Structure formats: structure tokens, C-alpha cells
């Protein structure tokens, strides 16, 4: 198993390429950008992208999807049935499926967005914007912040401490560190989240 991270300047988001050196099959998590650099990297390693996992459908995490699908015939996995008009295989909380030679498990962790998913592949947790290093994902209300923290608690925190957290933004982490130090798990964090105020509504 080989893992590569790509940092996209558009939206400052992380994409991940997970490749199997024996089968040469690969999957991409959140193709926020799909440019010549990413393509060259895939081709240089002799991979063929068979699957795309979307953690949620915010544009800076999926903008490269159309380009990717022009080059590779890949199945798209997401919590929603269509993204950019592209049909997706819908995944739900607790679903287990095999993709590109890897076994994946999906966790529904809404809060940042209603369709937020976290994918577990072996010791890797692709957390999208549900969980970042040191902070939970951004939410638009105290209700969503509470929901997010509750779902993180019930869905992910029972997993082993040495799980690797690979978020949609920022540096990687491990689950053990997040359990101890993430600001979202501090008492009263959700109450501090201010609802956005729009002057012109």
C-alpha cells in the first residue's frame, strides 16, 4: 500500500492517492484538483485509478472529479447519488466495500455538511472535514457542532489510538492524539460556535 498526499492551492485542501503496487490499482480520496502534476505522478507509478471516495461534496474537494473521469474509468463513492451530474455509488454509515483491492468502511459523520463521510482503510482514516488535526470541522451552528462531536464520539473514538488521521485540510495526525487534544472534545466547545450572521437576509 502506497499513500501520497497532494495539497491543492484551490481551497487549501488535501487529496490522497492510495495505490497497490502489486495490482497497480489505485483510488483517490477527494480530487480537489486534478492537474498534470497529479496525473504524471499516477502514470509514473503505473497506477490505474479505479475508484474515487468523496468525503463530502464541497467544491474544493471535488473540483478535479470531472477531469479525472475523462482519463480513468473509476467508480465514485459518496453519500449523495449525484455530484456534478455524475452518478455515484451511495455509501451509508457502516457500509463495508472492496475497492481497488482495498477494504473500506464508511462512517457517516454529519455536522460540517450533511453528507460528510469518513472512510477507514486498514489503519488509515480519511476524515475529510469532519476531523482535522487539533480541531473538528467547521460548522455553521452550535447544533451542528454538537452533532459533529457526538458523531465523532460514537463513530470514531472507539477505534485504536494508532489510526492515522488524514484530513481534508491541514496536517495529518493520529486518533490517539486527537482523542486527548482536539479542541472539539473540550467541554463547552459547541457552545462557542457562533452562527453566521448575514446582514442582508
Amino acid at each position: 500500500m502506497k499513500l501520497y498526499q497532494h495539497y491543492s492551492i484551490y481551497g487549501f485542501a488535501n487529496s490522497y492517492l492510495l495505490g497497490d503496487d502489486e495490482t497497480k490499482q489505485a483510488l483517490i480520496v477527494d480530487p480537489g484538483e486534478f492537474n498534470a502534476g497529479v496525473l504524471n505522478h499516477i502514470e509514473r507509478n503505473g497506477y490505474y485509478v479505479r475508484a474515487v471516495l468523496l468525503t463530502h461534496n464541497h467544491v474544493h474537494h471535488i473540483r478535479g472529479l470531472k477531469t479525472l473521469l475523462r482519463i480513468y474509468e473509476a467508480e465514485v463513492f459518496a453519500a449523495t447519488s449525484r455530484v456534478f451530474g455524475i452518478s455515484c455509488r451511495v455509501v451509508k454509515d457502516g457500509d463495508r466495500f472492496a475497492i481497488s483491492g482495498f477494504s473500506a468502511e464508511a462512517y457517516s459523520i454529519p455536522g460540517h455538511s450533511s453528507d460528510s463521510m469518513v472512510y477507514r482503510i486498514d489503519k488509515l482514516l480519511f476524515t475529510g472535514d469532519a476531523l482535522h488535526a487539533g480541531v473538528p470541522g467547521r460548522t455553521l451552528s452550535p447544533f451542528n457542532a454538537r452533532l459533529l462531536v457526538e458523531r465523532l464520539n460514537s463513530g470514531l473514538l472507539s477505534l485504536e489510538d494508532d489510526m492515522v488521521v488524514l484530513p481534508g485540510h491541514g496536517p495529518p495526525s493520529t486518533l490517539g492524539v486527537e482523542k486527548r487534544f482536539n479542541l472539539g472534545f473540550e467541554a463547552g466547545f459547541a457552545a462557542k460556535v457562533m452562527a453566521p450572521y448575514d446582514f442582508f437576509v
Partner: protein
Amino acid sequence: MYSFVRCVEPKCGKIAFAGGKACIVHAPHRAEAEAAALLEGSPEHRDLSFAGAAFEGLDLRGKKFYGCSFMGARLKSVLFTNAVFRLCFFDDATFDSCDFSHVDAQFCSFGGASLLNVSFENSELLHDSFVGASISECTFSNSNLYDSRFIRCELRNSDFVDCNLKRVYLIPSKEEKVSYKYSNTMESVRDEEHLYL
């Protein structure tokens, strides 16, 4: 990414040590010494786990590490000067008098680590996590820390002089005698009210 081959010992579940078959606890007696020789002997290391090992006085200057784990390791007087790190994990490791100056470390995690008298001067420390780390008598001066995170960490007697702090989360739980002289703190995140850029 380091291999997720599990220890052969039944019910252990930990990651196998240094490309072997068992974790550091169940590895053969000389495994740590052999790992030290492996580290010093090869210019490049990929996908290896050195979790839980204790290394002292190693000279790893200019080595390249890709997808390696040093989680829970104890490193004393180890030289990583000019080293390159990508996707490496040092979570809960202990560093005493180590040198990371002039390193290029991107997308690495030092979460929960304890760092005493460690130099990260003149380094590229992009997208690195120091969440929950205890950082004492350390210097990050003249380094590029773009998009790194220092959340709920403890900073004591440490310097961030003339650093690039753009998009850096600097929300330590303790901060004593820390200098940010000539650094662009205005471009960093310093409080929970402005948590999301």
C-alpha cells in the same frame, strides 16, 4: 506509508518493527541495534516503522524518510540535520537534544511528543502537526511553518524568530517566554474565535 503488517505475536495487534515480523516488544533481542544500523546505513528509508524504539547518538544527517513511523520512540542526541521527511509520524515520541535544523519536513505529525532542547532552525516545516506537544528549550527560528498546527501544546523558553507563520494555528495551552520576533503572527490563527480561516 509505513507497512501495516501486524506483529506475529497472537493478540498483540501492533505494527511490526523495522520491516520485521514482530513489534518492538516482541522483536528479537538485537532488533533495536539492527534498526539503528539500518537507519545509519541507508540514505533513504521508505514505509518503515520504528515505533517504540530508543535511539541515542545516531547520525542521520541528510537521510530521507518517506512514510516512516517513530511513534512513541525515545530519541536522544540524534542528528537529523538536512534530512527530508514526508508523511512521517513522531506522535508521543520523546526528543532530547536532537537536531532537525535545515530539514524539509512536510505533512508530518509530532502530536503529543515531548521535545526538549531540539533545534528546527532554518527548516521547511510545512503542514506539520505539533498538536498537544510539550516543547521546551526549542528553536524554530528562520523556518517556514506554513499551515502547521500548535494547538493545546505547551511552549516554554522557545523561539519562533523570523518565521513564516502564515495559516499556522498557534493556540497553545501554556506559553512561557516564547519569542515571535520578526515573525508574521498576524497571518496566524491565535484564538478560538478565528479558528477557521
